[in-house]
Structure formats: structure tokens, C-alpha cells
């Protein structure tokens, strides 16, 4: 006789895992954090994973993703002293960064799990920070990543025990950009949840580059939360580079919390990935804040990229500007939801939003939806979404000068993406991304053995030179 067992849902599996592994989950916690975990776990039990009946998930269907049988680990999947350099190496020409690595979501230490740089900046693993700096952790961890936002956020708050911790004290201008790299390299299907916390002190400045890469073709589901607190008059210049394999799902939840006079610029560059969902929550929690939230995505095949932006104007005299552009090829799909909330007291708010898309085929789709929710009366807000094809008149103009169809397309597509790329303020990074975008547009970019930043051959500049100054 054949016995058929009903397949356990991922939700039920996670609930069971949590209960069975409490000792490991709670091991580094302060009592406060343990309490927050329990609350988050209850929230997850109620919410479960989002499905397409939830408004903000209507165009992103996770049914297939959640059906897979993932391995889940409560401890690092590699041994102490793993030499990350063997797996992966950074070679952006001339880009000098302070590199912080995670392998399968676990902090990888080269010399200790937490260190203090000469300028006072503390970098380490979240679990080590919980033990060393309990007050900081209690004050910030889980305070911005709201369980109510989605079952994923609640699940992460309940489960995640490791990730990167960065603390910039007050009045420090961090000279070298910090680069966080999360590499996925595992020989089985894997579900990963990490949680990063970044604190930028008063009047301080930080440049942060976050890279998400896979180094093989294995299936993965990553549910990551990053909480970033930007204190008064501090500024953060943030980049998110995504170049993942087609079998990966990335749920990337970013929570930015700005105090008065703080400045944020964040730029999400999606070059490849099976299913990528970026949720950006920006809370402007004081007067005179400024937030630029940008993104560019290039998707093809059956890829799916979904950018969700929620800007919460809670105080007067703040400025926010969202600008997302995408090129969608084959039967890929892009989703954009931009929600601007201007609360009653947030007078003199300036809030802008734009989403522009080029569809290269009939099968490519874009769902773009602005949502302006305004309770103050003295505000300037605008939004606009466009979905179009490559401009045929422009193509004719370029080709009528002798430029072949391929280069003409490249010029137009590149110019379209460049509006976002030009906002990259780290020069070497900009050059590199520029190069990656061109390669991607030519179909030459693959997520090979190395990550977005580590393709070793720069293209020949002859054929396609953008900058007058470089001639």
C-alpha cells in the first residue's frame, strides 16, 4: 500500500523549526531582544507568508518559491577560519573599500567577530554586538523593521541571529566606503535570513555599498532585513548591487530611519536575479530631512523584479525624491509600487516620484502603481509612470548616421539607464557599474563564478565611449 503524506507548508515548517531550535535562536539575545523575537514569531504565525491577495503582493506571486524544500540552518554552514578569498575576490579597479563579508548570511570574521577601527567605527557580527553592546542593540534592533509590514519581516525578526553590525560614532566622516558582501555558496537549496543593523551617529558621514551575489546556480531563498538609523545631521550614501542567479529569490527589506537634518541617498542596481523584491521603507522622523531613493533594473528571461518604496513624511520641511528606471526584456516582469505618506503635520513637504520603463518585447510586463496619501495641505507632490518601447524615431536618427542597429539600441538603452548611474558618487564604482550595464545590455554579462563587481575583464573602450573627458 502506498502512503501519501501531505506536504508540510513552509510556514508550518518554520513554526516547527522555531520551537525546536529555541536554544540556538535565543543564545546571543538580551532579554529585550528575546521578547521582541517572541512577539515577531506570534506576528508571523498570524500573517504567514504574503500571497497575491495582499494588495502590495498582487503582482508578485511566491507560490512556486514557497513550495520548494529548503534547508535551514541555525548555525554557520562553514567552519571557523574559512578563507573567503578562495571563494571570491573583489577586483573593482582602484576601488578601495573596507570589506565586510557574509557567507550564506553568516558574518565571516577574519580577525575576530567585532573590531573597532582607529576612527571609532565598530564593525562586527550582529551576534557579537548583542553581547558587547546590549544598550545599542536594545535601542535600535527591531525598532524600525516593523513586523506589520509583512510576514517576511516578522519571520526575520523572529529568526535572524546574525548579520552585520556597523556603528559610526557621532562626528565621524568615514573616509573609506564600507562594502558589505553577502555571498551565497551552498550545495543544497537553502533558505537564509540575516539581519543587519547600521547606526550612523550625529553629524557623521558614511558611504555603504551592499552587494548580493550568488556564486553558483543553486536555488536559494533569502529574506534579509537591514535597519539603518541615520541620526541628526548625519548622511548616508548607500548602494545596493544585485547580481544573482536565476534560481534565487531575494526578499530585501530595507528600513531607513532619518532624524532631523539627516540625508539619505540610496540606489538599488539590479542586474540579474530570479525573483527580487526590494522593499524600501524610509521614515523621515525630523525636520529638514532629505531622501533620494533610486533604482535601476535590467531584467530578462523569466526574471521578476519588484521595487516597493514607502516614504513616510512625519515632520515638516522634508524632501524626498524617488526615481526608478527599468529595461524589461523577454518575458520578464517588473513591478513598482511607490507609496508616499504625508502626515498631517508634515507641512512644506516636497515629495516626488518617477518610474520609467522600456519594454523590449510584447511578452515583457510592467506593473507600476503610485499611491499618494496626503493629510497635510501645504505640500508639493508629484508622480509619474511611463512604460514605452524603444523610440523608433531616435533609432532611425542614429542609424541614419551609420550606426548599426545593435549599437543604436545600446546607445539609447544605456542613455536611459545612465540617468540613474550618473548619481553614483563613488567614481570607481560608477565606472564599474557603467561597464556592467553595457555588458548586461549586450547580453555579455553572466553571473559566472564571481559577483557583480568581480568580472575581471573591462570592456574595450573604443567602441562605446561615453565621457567626453575620457577621449
Amino acid at each position, binding site marked *: 500500500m502506498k502512503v501519501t503524506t501531505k506536504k508540510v507548508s513552509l510556514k508550518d515548517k518554520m513554526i516547527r523549526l522555531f520551537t525546536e531550535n529555541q536554544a540556538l535562536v535565543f543564545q546571543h539575545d538580551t532579554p529585550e531582544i528575546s521578547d521582541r523575537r517572541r512577539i515577531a514569531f506570534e506576528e508571523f504565525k498570524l500573517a504567514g507568508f504574503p500571497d497575491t491577495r495582499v494588495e502590495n503582493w498582487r503582482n508578485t506571486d511566491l507560490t512556486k518559491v514557497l513550495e520548494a524544500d529548503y534547508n535551514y540552518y541555525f548555525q554557520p554552514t562553514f567552519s571557523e577560519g574559512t578563507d573567503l578569498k578562495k571563494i571570491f575576490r573583489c577586483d573593482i579597479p582602484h576601488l578601495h573599500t573596507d570589506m565586510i563579508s557574509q557567507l550564506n548570511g553568516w558574518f565571516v570574521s577574519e580577525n575576530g567577530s567585532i573590531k573597532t577601527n582607529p576612527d571609532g567605527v565598530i564593525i562586527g557580527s550582529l551576534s557579537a554586538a548583542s553581547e558587547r553592546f546590549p544598550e545599542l542593540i536594545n535601542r535600535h534592533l527591531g525598532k524600525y523593521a516593523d513586523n506589520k509590514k509583512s510576514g517576511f519581516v516578522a519571520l526575520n525578526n523572529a529568526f535572524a541571529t546574525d548579520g552585520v553590525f556597523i556603528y559610526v560614532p557621532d562626528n565621524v566622516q568615514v573616509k573609506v566606503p564600507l562594502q558589505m558582501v553577502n555571498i551565497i555558496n551552498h550545495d543544497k537549496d537553502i533558505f537564509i535570513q540575516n539581519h543587519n543593523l547600521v547606526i550612523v551617529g550625529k553629524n557623521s558621514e558614511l558611504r555603504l555599498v551592499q552587494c548580493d551575489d550568488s556564486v553558483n546556480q543553486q536555488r536559494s531563498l533569502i529574506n534579509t532585513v537591514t535597519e539603518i538609523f541615520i541620526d541628526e545631521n548625519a548622511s548616508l550614501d548607500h548602494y545596493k548591487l544585485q547580481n544573482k542567479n536565476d534560481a534565487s529569490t531575494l526578499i530585501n527589506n530595507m528600513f531607513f530611519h532619518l532624524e532631523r537634518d539627516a540625508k539619505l541617498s540610496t540606489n538599488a542596481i539590479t542586474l540579474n536575479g530570479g525573483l527580487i523584491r526590494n522593499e524600501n521603507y524610509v521614515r523621515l522622523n525630523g525636520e529638514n530631512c532629505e531622501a533620494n531613493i533610486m533604482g535601476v533594473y535590467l531584467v530578462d528571461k523569466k526574471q521578476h523584479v519588484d521595487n516597493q518604496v514607502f516614504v513616510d513624511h512625519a515632520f515638516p520641511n522634508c524632501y524626498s525624491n524617488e526615481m526608478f528606471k527599468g529595461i524589461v526584456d523577454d518575458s520578464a516582469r517588473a513591478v513598482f509600487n511607490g507609496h508616499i505618506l504625508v502626515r498631517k503635520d508634515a507641512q512644506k513637504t516636497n515629495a516626488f516620484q518617477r518610474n520609467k520603463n522600456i519594454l523590449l518585447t510584447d511578452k515583457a510586463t510592467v506593473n507600476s502603481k503610485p499611491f499618494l496619501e496626503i493629510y497635510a495641505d501645504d505640500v508639493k507632490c508629484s508622480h509619474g509612470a511611463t512604460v514605452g518601447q524603444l523610440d*523608433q*524615431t*531616435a533609432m*532611425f*536618427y*542614429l*542609424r*541614419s*548616421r*551609420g*550606426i*548599426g*542597429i545593435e*549599437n*543604436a539600441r545600446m*546607445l*539609447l538603452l*544605456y*542613455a*536611459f539607464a*545612465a*540617468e540613474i548611474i550618473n548619481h553614483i558618487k563613488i567614481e570607481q564604482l560608477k565606472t564599474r557599474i557603467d561597464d556592467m550595464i553595457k555588458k548586461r545590455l549586450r547580453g555579455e554579462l553572466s553571473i559566472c563564478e564571481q559577483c557583480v563587481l568581480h568580472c575581471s575583464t573591462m570592456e574595450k573602450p*573604443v*567602441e*562605446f*565611449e*561615453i565621457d*567626453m573627458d575620457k*577621449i
Partner: protein
Amino acid sequence: MLSIKNLHVAINGKEIIKGLSLEVNQGEVHAIMGPNGTGKSTLAAVIAGREDIFEVTEGEIIYKHKNLLDLSIEDRAREGIFLGFQYPVEIPGVSITNFMRTAINEIRQYKGLDQLSGAEFLKKMDDAKKLVGIQSKLTNRSVNEGFSGGEKKKNEIFQMALLQPELAILDETDSGLDIDALKIVAKGVNSLRSPENAIVVITHYQRLLDYIVPDFVHVLYEGKIVKSGGKELALELEAKGYDWLKSEV
């Protein structure tokens, strides 16, 4: 050099050019005049290869002994055809420098020539800039983006000077130009005049022809060339308008 025989062109099934014939030889300058909407720009675009909206339903175009209609848009340009657009296209994000460098190098590659070095290209740019009297301020900007009407026209002549075509078709390059700009454009065009090259100017104004003296003037009327003559025909049109030609159709 260019031989058009019994050309018929339709847009969305509607015939715009209705049996047009025209011979242009090396060393000649032709002017095409005619009322609005008679198909002058359509003719120019068809010669340059615009096939997504214009459909050639009948006739042939032979250029340098080749069947022009078989060539792609870019190959026509590489074979020496240049179209000065009546309405130059704005292309945000693409600098003129990058645009022209890409174009020149692709044309050179087609001809089996080496790519231009940065220095050689800059030298060419400088020469063309001087000829047309435009500044780096303009050439460093995105193609035609935010240019005034006159600047766009000058930019067309600048591109022509850089690409050195064998057959230039200039569609109302004189429209919207002040008198100084008109002289500059004429200077640019005249510098291209040689026994090997040919130029077709489409214009509404006899004024231009004082500066670019044509060998032939044609009147395009309702999709056909209804009258051809020497430069005096332009003066006659200026004086009498087009109505008197109706009887000749």
C-alpha cells in the same frame, strides 16, 4: 549617382508619393521645392531608409549602381548618404561626441579602415566646429536636447561636416535660421561641393538658393515632380506661387 524611377510610397495604405522620378549626378546641386504636405520629407526619409512608416509600393532607387532599397538604414549612411532632418530628433543622455564618434568608427569599420584615435577624432571635431561656428558647450550636450530650432539645424550641418557624405539631402535646413546662421549653413554645404559629391536641398525659400546656387530646381506637387528647370525656376515660384502649376499636373 542617384536614379529614382517611378517611385510610389504609401503611409498606412495611403499613397503619398505617386510615381516620382529624379536623376542626380555627381557634382550637381538640386533644389526641391513645393507646397506643404506634398511629400518632400517623405521622399528624403525613404532615400535614407525609413521603412517602418513608409512603404515603397512601386518603383526603384539606384544609388552608385546599387539597389538602394535593399540596403539597411545604416548601410546607406555608410555608403555616403546623409539626411539633414527637417525635425532633428532629441536624444537625452547621448552626447553628440559619443554619437559622432560611434558613427564615424562604424562607417570606417564598414569601409575597412582603422578606428580613429581620440586625438584624430578631436581634431576632426574641432575642424567641423570651426566650419559651422558651434561651441563645445553645445557638442558636449546630449544630442539636440533643449537646443533651439536654429541650433538643431546647425547641429545637422555639423554632423554632415564630420561625416563628409557623398550625397547629402538637406530637408529644410534653412527653416528657422537667422541670416547669419543661414550664411554659415550655406558655407558648410558649399564646402562639401565637389565634382564627386551631390547635394539635394529641400527648401521653401528662394533666399537659400542665393547662397547655395543650384544646378536644377524641381517642383514636387502632390507626390510627383511636375516641373524641373534651372535656378530661374525658383525665382518664378517665388513670384507666382504654386497655383499656376495646377494646370500642368
